[in-house]
Structures are given as C-alpha cells and as structure tokens.
C-alpha cells in the first residue's frame, strides 16, 4: 500500500466525537432499559415472582405455578410487547424518512384503521371466531394498504397523495368501526378493549404471528438504511445519487405496512409509538438511519414492555390497556413536537 492509501485506511475509522459517545450511550441506555423492563415484566403482576423463584426456575427447580406464570403468561407477553414496540418504531422511522413528513406514523397510511375495522367485524359479527381476530386484522390492514396504494398511484407512489389517500381510507374504515358499534351496542364490550390496544391475553401463538414479520421488517429496513439516508434529502437528491426511487419507496412503504399490520393484529390499535420513538431517538442519536434504526428498534421495544408492565400493575389486579396509557403519554409529546417545530 502506498502512503496515501494508508492514510485513507486510517481515516476509515469514524472520529470519536460527541456524536459517537452519544450514540454509544443511547444504545447502552436503550438496551439497559429493555433488560430492566423485561425483567420487571416477568417478575411483577397479580402474583409477583421473586428473583429467587426465577433463578430456581432457570435451573429447572421452580414450582409448577411459577413455571406456568412465567412461561405461559409473562414471557410471551413481554416478547410480544417487545416485538410490537420494535415493529411500530421501525415503521415510524421508515415513513418519516420516505414521506419527508416528521408527523408520519403507521396510522397515516390507513393500515391501522383497516386492521381495526376487520378485527371489529369478527369480534362483533362472528364472536365465535375470536381466534381469527389476528388474521382478520392483518388482512384488513393489507386491504387498506392496497386501496391506499391504488389511490396514490401516479407512475409510482406519490408521497403527498399517499398521505391524503391514507387519511381518507382511515376515515372511511373508522366510520365502518363506528357503524358496527352503533348497530351492535350490546356486543362491543370485549371489542372496545381490543381497540384501545394492549397485550392482555398475549400467548405464544401471538409471538409466532409477529416474529416472522419482525424479522423481515428489521432486516429489510437495515438493508435499506443507506437508501433511507438518501431519501430524506429529497427525492431529486436520492435520484441523482442513483437510488431507484419508485422501487425503493414501494418496498419501504410496504415493509412499514407489514410491520404495522402484524403489530395491530396481536396488539390492537396502539397509537403514538411509531411517532414518538423515532423522534426521541432522532434528538439523541441524530438523523443518520445507520444509528437511528437500531436505536429506535431497541427503545421502541423497551418502551412498550415497560409501559405494558406499568399499565397492568399500577391498578393491579385491574389492567389498563397499554394503548390508553401510551395515548396519555404520547399526545402531550406530540403537542410538544408541534410547538418545537413552530418555534424553530
């Protein structure tokens, strides 16, 4: 190697500036938060499990009751919440980057409303098929996405039309949901809880429903981090950097939709996670997707596990759906963002 090449080789290493340390801290902080939240999620509940009991269990000497609580109730619930939190955070990251809109979240492309009306229809019209709710919600989300894509198609997806179509489709399906309530006021009891969003009743089968999409979504978004970086500089810059704009935009929006759809199918309508997590992480690690995506994924998982544990233990034995809790947390944050933007 010549001298010049050696210097270049040395400069491949990133400078360890303030951003570098902040990113390391953010990763470590989010990881720690996730670990603590997961542990709390396993230990706390209507019947608390102590650390000794847990360690006995891990050595294969736990009591049957503890095993049942941890393995069949708490563990799948914690994993479910973590996967859903990660999915929603990644979906929000993608949409904010692709649509150049800081207020974008999975609700904006209509998939959440599609999942909602389909799940409602099953729960109210065919309560015997309650176990089909996740599948119905997933299909409802994809149908909504297909309609939104059709409406927004103009030689490729037009971001502005996508948002308008998404809002319109969301309003339409939202109307459908309300119509079901009005028509069957006596059957909405269980359905309302689902709408509020939460992990009550989460079991291993739910984990298996979400997991494949989480894996596809995570790999797909990380695979595209450089393209996301280019896209957030505007469509024309992305094109001039050799990004196949139409294809990339389609793939990324589709990824965000399946992430959101799989989440809605097991957790109902959870608002705000997809909006606030990417924003908080952007403030800490910056807007480079190479760091933003993993940080958001971990923090989103940690936030939902923590919030769910909190929401089901605070008024124990009564559970508040975590969706309500998140809305109380998320709405003020949303307003704070708006205020920051209008000032800056």
């Amino acid at each position, binding site marked *: 190697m010549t001298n010049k*090449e050696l210097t270049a*080789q040395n400069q491949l290493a990133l400078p360890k500036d303030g951003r570098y340390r902040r990113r390391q801290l953010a990763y470590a902080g989010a990881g720690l938060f996730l670990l603590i939240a997961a542990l709390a999620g396993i230990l706390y509940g209507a019947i608390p499990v102590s650390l000794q009991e847990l360690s006995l269990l891990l050595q294969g000497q736990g009591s049957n009751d503890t095993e049942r609580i941890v393995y069949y109730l708490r563990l799948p619930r914690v994993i479910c919440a973590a996967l859903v939190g990660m999915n929603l955070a990644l979906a929000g990251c993608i949409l904010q980057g692709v649509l150049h809109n800081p207020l974008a979240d999975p609700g904006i492309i209509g998939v959440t409303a599609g999942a909602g009306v389909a799940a409602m229809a099953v729960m109210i019209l065919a309560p015997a098929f309650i176990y089909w709710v996740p599948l119905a919600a997933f299909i409802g989300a994809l149908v909504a996405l297909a309609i939104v894509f059709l409406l927004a198609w103009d030689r490729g997806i037009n971001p502005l039309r996508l948002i308008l179509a998404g809002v319109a489709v969301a309003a339409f399906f939202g109307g459908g949901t309300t119509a079901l309530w009005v028509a069957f006021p006596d059957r909405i009891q269980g359905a309302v809880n689902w709408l509020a969003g939460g992990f009550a009743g989460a079991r291993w089968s739910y984990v298996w429903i979400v997991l494949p999409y989480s894996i596809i979504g995570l790999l797909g978004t990380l695979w595209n981090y450089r393209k996301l970086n*280019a896209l957030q*500089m505007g469509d024309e810059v992305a094109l*001039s*950097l*050799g990004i*196949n704009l139409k294809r990339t935009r389609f793939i990324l929006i589709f990824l965000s939709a399946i992430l959101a759809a799989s989440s809605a199918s097991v957790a109902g309508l959870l608002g705000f996670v997809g909006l606030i997590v990417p924003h908080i992480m952007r403030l800490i690690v910056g807007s*480079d997707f190479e760091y933003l995506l993993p940080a958001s994924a971990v923090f989103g998982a940690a936030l939902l596990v923590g919030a769910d544990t909190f929401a089901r233990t605070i008024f124990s034995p009564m559970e508040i759906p975590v969706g309500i809790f998140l809305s109380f947390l998320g709405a003020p944050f949303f307003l704070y963002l708006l205020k920051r933007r209008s000032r800056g």
Partner: protein
Amino acid sequence: MTRTLVMDQGRIGYGERIVGEGVNVSFDKPEIVSIIGPNGSGKSTVLKTLGRLLEPMAGTVLLDGKNIQKMGAKEVARIISMLPQSAQAPQDMTVRDLVLCGRLPYQNAFSSLKVEDVQAVEAALEETGLVNLQHRPLKDLSGGERQRAWLAMAIAQEPDILMLDEPTTFLDVRYQLELMKLVVKLHKTRGITVIMVLHDLNHAAHFSHRLIAVKQGQIVADGAVADIFNETVLSQLYDVNMVFSKLQINGEEHTICVPYESRI
C-alpha cells in the same frame, strides 16, 4: 473521460403538463455550458431530463449512445451528478456525512467504506476548501459554505458530467463569485463537463464556454458565448431592451449586459 449526452426530440414536462416539444441538444466535450432563459421557460426541465431526474414523455436522452432511461440508476449516477434546487439535508448531518453520501452509487447495502471512497471524499473536501469544516453540522454553516458542501457531495460521485440547477440563487455576491470560480476550477482540474442553469447573465457569459437559451420549452439559441451574448438574441429571449458593454478588469475583458426597459 469524454462523454456524449444527447437529447433527441425530447417531449419534456411534469406529469401531464408538457413544457417543451421536440427538444434537441447535445454535449460532446468537456466544457462549461449555461442554460439561460426567462422564469418558467423550461430550463430546469431540460436539465432534469438530461440528468435522468425526469423521464421524457417522448424522444430519448442518450448517454454515450445508450438510452439513459434503460441504464441503471447507479450506473448513471457514476457518470452524471446533479445538484438539484430542492436539496435539503437533516440539520445535524455533518459536512463529511453529506459528502460521503456522494459515494452511494458505488456502495451496496452493507459494503463497508473502501479506500477509494475515502480518497474521493478527501479529494472533494480538499478541492472545495472544506477540510477544516468537515466535522461541522450543516446547520452551523453559512449559505455559501453549505452550497460548497453540496457541491463536494456531487464531486465525490466522481462524475464526468456535473449538473447544477441555479447553484447561486440564495447566495450573496461574494459567495456567488466564489462558487462560480470553484466550478471553473473543478472543470479545469477534473476535465469534466459542467451544465448549469443560471439566472445571472453576466456570470453565465463570463464563466461559460457555451450558452443555451430556452424560451417556452424550446431551445431558441445554442452556441459559443460570443454568438449568444448579444442584444439580438437576449433582448428577444427576455423581451427586455439591453445594452452591452466591454470592460477591462485586471487585464481581463468582461462583456456585461444591463437590461433597462421591458418590451411588454
């Protein structure tokens, strides 16, 4: 490397709206070319279609004889780099991060930075005088520095053809002058073709070899600066009466124009 870029019978425009019809223009040697013309005449549309940002509704754009729409986006991006007007970047992005983006056409999803990438970035930072500012976030830069950073990104693509869409629009006179001089320097040291849309006619005349005049989507004049930069062509082009005058500045002859009265 010398490239040829040809638009053959291009019908250009956005979506359904046709801006120009039967547009023919070609570039076959490393020169500095400015596209001039009134607002809304289609200058940017011509440039974007040449740079593959817009697809012609009819006709073709040929790069080295190949239809540019049939070439891969990355393949084109290694030959043509374009600095659009709409360029925007996250405020916390540093100059170096931005310039590194210029290497995207050479990277795959997970490929790590190669020595050539770093060398291209270093060279671009050096040539644009940004070495000392490379770790600054873009929000801390002046307008002129920021525009230089974008230019450095375009240069890091190692293009043979550099396209600039009104690069001096938001800059004050000093930064305008600096940027134009930088463009001339890059053309000379790298031997690249520069095609840009400019509003300042005196800059266009002084810093280019060739001028292309666009009006109502048609190329109404195309040739060496001496043949275009005169009253006959420009008064027609802008519907404005102008006087032209020659000045000696630092032993260099400048022809300048002063528009003084609208014709309509």
